[in-house]
């Protein structure tokens, strides 16, 4: 097998760069063997050819100084590096780079929890710290703080936050809870944001003086984040999770409109979810138990599945937190509101505990990491998936329009609609989990084609996606093309200024360095 090399780099140059990086971090942390060492830097869920995202090497520095030295080397050779933290961004590309031949800059060895401040409710972590790591640390220390984790929770805090990930507690908007960061620019310059000279205030006050630049380093390739502050929620005196099952498809519109003022006014403080039947069922069951035919599951089978498992066509999860009188007050209001929906049923721990779908949501809404959501991958055999994730207002008509649009297309291409709406403060993320058999080439291609069409459909309805798989970053960047792509052109100007050799994650979210722009 030929070694995938970066565009314009020959093997001699590549070997020269690798030899220099070995001098910096040691042979043990430079990985070049495609079979033994680099398989974990491929994307197991890609919908095209495996080699489309094959790195040439991976390097794992331990310190900021080592990153600076590595960047000096790759600047000299003009070899692109693709930065990852823990590399668990599955469904969006995992640890794999945007183009073959890049060197993966793997920061998982930078895994220090630098500080947890119980009084002020924050942590400062390096990129290799996973949600499990921080949770376990807080438990060991006995701090009365909650984290907010992604599902599944094996990913890293820095990586998820910088990719605009979301969780399920009241601190579910991860970037909103980010405060202060340290970044290494392509030329090795180290930048720290926040408040000058005061590490504590830097984790409490985002803006310092002048333009707030932290966002520039998220979903981008303008620098390498090496440290980040994240706010942590004080452990509340009480927690009441609940679920509302809804019997009809059209109830999606109602529940969204009824939830919107409750969310906006923080009666429901956490990131609520409206989850479809199949997502819920897939936690404990497989499709073949109810339907062995080809194509999407028919309504008759769906009805039986819902009845057997006591699930609604939609299932709304949320929680209230605080002293019991406040929780009671808010729950009364929530019950009154949602009881207006005919057939809506409330569920709590007493009736749902022990049900996998309920149990893992209850944990997530109180920031306890788990991996249960991976059970979805057993819905069909060979569980590959990529996520199509358009944003909308918390508005019933938008919810139903997106659901209807995606479901029709999914069925047209022979896939089930498996989705959830993550209801934020004012917006909602719609996650369509496009499941396919990753061992089936025809099915992978069909999934790819469906995703491609969905981007166009969404754009035609005025919806943009918040995050996407490597394969579709350029296309989605193009869908943000208002005013002759002024936004992307601005991003490119910044890229050219901060990274003139184009070494940092070329192509991330459609942002390419000048020398690769014409070929991208």
């Amino acid at each position: 097998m030929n070694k995938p090399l970066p565009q314009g780099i020959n093997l001699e140059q590549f070997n020269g760069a690798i030899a220099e990086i070995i001098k910096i971090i040691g042979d043990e942390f430079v990985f070049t063997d495609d079979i033994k060492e680099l398989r974990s830097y491929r994307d197991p869920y890609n919908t095209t050819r495996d080699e489309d995202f094959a790195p040439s090497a991976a390097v794992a520095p331990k310190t900021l100084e080592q990153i600076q030295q590595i960047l000096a080397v790759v600047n000299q050779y003009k070899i692109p590096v693709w930065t990852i933290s823990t590399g668990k961004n599955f469904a969006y590309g995992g640890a794999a780079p945007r183009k073959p031949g890049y060197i993966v800059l793997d920061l998982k060895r930078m895994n220090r929890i630098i500080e947890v401040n119980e009084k002020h409710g924050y942590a400062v972590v390096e990129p290799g710290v996973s949600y499990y790591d921080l949770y376990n640390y807080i438990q060991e220390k006995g701090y009365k703080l909650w984290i907010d984790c992604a599902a599944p929770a094996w990913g890293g805090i820095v990586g998820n936050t910088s990719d605009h990930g979301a969780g399920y507690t009241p601190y579910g908007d991860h970037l909103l809870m980010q405060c202060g960061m340290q970044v290494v620019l392509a030329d090795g310059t180290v930048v720290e944001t926040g408040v000058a000279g005061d590490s504590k205030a830097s984790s409490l006050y985002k803006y310092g003086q002048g333009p707030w630049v932290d966002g520039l380093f998220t979903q981008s390739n303008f620098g390498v984040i090496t440290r980040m502050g994240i706010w942590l929620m004080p452990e509340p005196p009480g927690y009441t999770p609940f679920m509302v099952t809804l019997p009809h498809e059209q109830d999606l519109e109602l529940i969204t409109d009824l939830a919107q003022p409750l969310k906006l006014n923080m009666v429901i403080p956490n990131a609520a979810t409206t989850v479809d039947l199949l997502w819920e069922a897939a936690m404990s069951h497989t499709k073949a138990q109810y339907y062995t035919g080809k194509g999407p599951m028919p309504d008759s089978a769906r009805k039986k599945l819902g009845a057997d498992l006591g699930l609604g066509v939609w299932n709304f999860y949320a929680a209230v937190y605080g002293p019991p009188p406040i929780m009671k007050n808010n729950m009364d209001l929530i019950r009154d509101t949602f009881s207006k929906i005919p057939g809506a049923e409330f569920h709590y721990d007493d009736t749902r505990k022990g049900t996998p779908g309920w149990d893992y949501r209850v944990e997530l809404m109180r920031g306890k990491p788990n991996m249960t959501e991976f059970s979805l991958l057993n819905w069909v055999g060979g569980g590959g998936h990529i996520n199509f994730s358009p944003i909308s207002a918390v508005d019933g008509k938008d919810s139903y329009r997106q659901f209807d649009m995606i479901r029709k297309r999914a069925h047209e291409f022979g896939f089930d609609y498996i989705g959830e709406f993550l209801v934020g403060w004012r917006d909602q993320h719609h996650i369509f989990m496009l499941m396919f058999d990753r061992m089936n080439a025809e099915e992978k291609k069909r999934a790819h084609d469906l995703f491609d069409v969905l981007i166009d459909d969404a754009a035609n309805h005025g919806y943009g996606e918040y995050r996407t798989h490597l394969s579709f970053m350029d296309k989605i960047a193009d869908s943000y093309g208002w005013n002759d792509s002024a936004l992307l052109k601005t991003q490119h100007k910044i890229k050219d200024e901060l990274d003139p050799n184009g070494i940092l994650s070329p192509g991330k979210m459609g942002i390419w360095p000048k020398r690769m722009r014409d070929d991208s």
Partner: protein
Amino acid sequence: MLTRRTFIKSTLAANIALAAPASLALTAIKNTQDEQALLIFADENSSNASLFSKQFSEAEAHISLDIGLHFDTFNAFCRENPNGWVSGITRDSDFFVLQQLASQHGYHTAYSATHTVSNNTLAHQVTSSAEKAPLLARALGNAGDKWPTWLADNLATLQNTTAADNTANSRTQSLSQAGDNHVLVSWLLIPSNSTQS
């Protein structure tokens, strides 16, 4: 050459005994002896997985559904046993997660196979080396409904020095109905620096 006997006669290094709901739980059994350390995962909800795990130890420990609860066990095993093997019969999602974790410890997938039952037909799709894949697929087919026992008996023969990437299939009549999870995966993860054969 490693044999099943060397695994079975080994002393039980540690039992993991965490209370767990019966449904969808995993069974993990850890055997260690002089030559080889072995960590076995089995989906407790699957009779085939239970049959497999029973071949290695009389002791069983129940660990709850969420594969995340196994991370500490898995990572500790890999750290403490640089030449250890990890094998199991699990749901595909659990295998995927363990496979990713294993790669961080320098492990590769020496063998994996999906096992499905449909209309009284048991199908195995084996991924292994070019030489071994068809042999293993045929052997599993010949073993009929006792295929988990055959796998346990022949665990040592499943290893490959590099990642498995060739597939072969076999089909056979089965008396059993479709299992709880329908698609089960059997697998073997070994360190890439393993020199045993």
